[in-house]
């Protein structure tokens, strides 16, 4: 067993509490968060998050496939707008 497996996934506590509250209330309002390093756990599925990318909050709707990834993976921090000149 690797050390990281032993330690278990990192889930932001405050965010997790918010998620539980939202589920109890059946509330689908997007949850704003800065916790990009937080692993997506099965409890998150079906909720919408607003994940900060350093500038704005990107809307992330969590599906089952996303479990195990981190929230930050879905909120890109860099944007490439193609080079000048372009192509013919």
């Amino acid at each position, binding site marked *: 067993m690797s050390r990281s497996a032993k330690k278990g996934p990192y889930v932001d506590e405050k965010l997790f509490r918010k998620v539980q509250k939202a589920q109890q209330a059946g509330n689908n309002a997007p949850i704003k968060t800065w916790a990009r390093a937080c692993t997506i756990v099965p409890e998150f599925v079906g909720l919408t998050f607003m994940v900060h990318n350093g500038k704005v909050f990107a809307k992330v709707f969590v599906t089952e496939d996303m479990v195990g990834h981190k929230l930050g993976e879905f909120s*890109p921090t860099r944007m490439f707008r193609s080079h000048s000149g372009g192509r013919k």
Partner: protein
Amino acid sequence: MPRVAGVDIPNDKPTRIALRYIYGIGPKFAVEICRKAEIDPNIHAKNLTESELSAIGGILTNDYVIEGQLRRQVQQHIARLRDISCYRGFRHRRGLPVRGQRTKTNARTRKGPRKTVAGKKSVKEMR
């Protein structure tokens, strides 16, 4: 030349080497298979008997994911990354390195042949 697992025709090398010509079988699995089939890993592939070959074939189909099936599996995993629009998915779509390598220089395996841009400073000028 012996024939194992459909299309693969490993040549006259020791069995543990010859098995590695199968997609999905590396040094570790090659030796493992020999052990399971109770074959001396150093015996040359051409000297394998018919029953030994079928034993290997049986083990390959039952315990290992190889060739087309494995290729498909890999493609599916990449497709999943693309579908959920995560960072790694973007990098696959763009054809850029996925694991955080630098792209200012190098990364030619992913990016393909150099596309020269007129007016761009060369590496020499930058120094």
